[in-house]
């Protein structure tokens, strides 16, 4: 399990379907049935038709890299080791929405625009599972609706 260095992740009552999915290693995002258009899990309505009734739907989990950044912890006053740097990213889901995300298992030197990624979930001992993206070989895309 990745050491995140952060605290415990809890539900907020508005995105339970996302965390139910995460617990089962499934990426749940939002979808407008009227427009057949996909949105990020925190979208509040459809920007095309204005409809507030977005529904939760399972995304395939395939994504590509848009941009990335490495967050370095502030050096500690007492000289003790700071938490490991975090590899942050902006990723484009195959369905279209972009997510702010954490990369896992990547070689910083190989990052590039368009790098194929796949969603995965980490399950900490306490709190909700959280989403990370890992590079794929590009040859074996995850089955979009595996397990449904």
């Amino acid at each position: 399990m990745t050491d995140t260095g952060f605290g415990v992740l809890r539900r907020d009552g508005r995105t339970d379907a996302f965390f139910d999915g995460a617990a089962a290693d499934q990426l749940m995002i939002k979808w407008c049935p009227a427009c057949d258009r996909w949105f990020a899990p925190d979208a509040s309505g459809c920007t095309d038709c204005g409809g507030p009734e977005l529904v939760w739907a399972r995304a395939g989990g395939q994504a590509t890299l848009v941009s990335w950044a490495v967050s370095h912890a502030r050096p500690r006053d007492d000289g003790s080791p700071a938490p490991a740097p975090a590899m942050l990213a902006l990723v484009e889901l195959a369905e279209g929405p972009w997510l702010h995300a954490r990369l896992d298992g990547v070689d910083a030197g190989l990052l590039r625009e368009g790098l194929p990624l796949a969603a995965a979930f980490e399950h900490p001992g306490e709190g909700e599972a959280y989403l990370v993206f890992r590079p794929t070989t590009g040859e074996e895309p995850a089955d979009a609706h595996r397990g449904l």
Partner: protein
Amino acid sequence: MRTDRFGQAAIAGLGMTELGKVYGPSPRRLAAQAVRAAVADAGLTLDDVDGLLVSHGMSGSPGIELAETLGLRDLRLLTHMNAFGATAGAMVSYAAMSVISGAADTVACVFADAPLKPRQPAGSAYDSAAREYYGFTGMTAALGFRSVNAFYALAAQRHMARYGTTGEQLGAIAVATRRWAGMNPLAQMREPITVDDHQNSRWVVEPLRLLDCCLVSNGAVAVVVTSADRARDLARPPVHIWGWGQGHPGHRLERGSEFGLVTGAATSGPVAMKMAGVTADDIDVCELYDCYTYTVLVSLEDYGFCAKGEGGPFAASGALAPGGSLPTNTGGGQLSAYYMWGMTPLSEAVVQARGHAAERQVTKNDVILVSGNGGILDHHSTLILSPQPRGHRP
């Protein structure tokens, strides 16, 4: 469309409190102090003020109760405004329109903030770390998106990957800005730096280093806007407002987005320049919002000072530094002087337009561009200012 009235408003007063580690007064008291200073600077009294536009930073104060603090009576214009870092430009444009339309005669515009607390790292004022995080948004924060640094880093990295922009080119902006700061007694950081110093400064969120990031400051800044005719008879040389514009691209975070690569300056710049009757070639001085070195780089492209993707080489050419072809952030900007959001570039523009910048005074100041930027390159404002009445041709 009538254009003859556009140039008929001017900035007549500038007031600044002590800026930086100012821990005593509340943001409201700082704002009141700045308004009083700006009004006095113009040679006016508070009785002359009939309009007040208020904005604030992270502190969430003051709002329109500032009018009561100042004891202002019979105002004809009073509101709080917020377009984040674009607010200062938006306030000045609203004030100018009010003066031109006759809705008000003398409008004070003020920004105040006091995010710095004693014995607390400056960065923590804009950062959040918690033990528990809630919901999907909380997950994003927990994974490391805890301050705007991370989002600007993604923007800068996207430009680097797309156009080959380098950290050294960002460093050239930090170095040029510090050179200007060395000539500004109000600047908080005045020690000269080199590109090596920049490259050796610690990572904040890679590709942004400590010297790519602005300061955090407490204080307040105010300006007074009135008619150009009236300004001519007041205490200071008028700073004529030739044009203004806003741009809010509304980048959606989805396939095809130009997030990070194109800012609202691509819209606000042409609007303001057209109103002013100038092009990018006519701009003598730039005062750009520089929350990060990268903000300067991408704004320069969007204003048309260089082609898209060439902001890095342009910055590294020395154009922005003292003696360069496009003097930029001549007071040391937010990177090295003081962080009063959009009031940082605006205040320096007023000083340069008046010819009061002493050692750092630029030789040619006929057309000055002031840029505001808010959100993650989401909100932009532009002002075109001049010591000359609109229509003046050098």
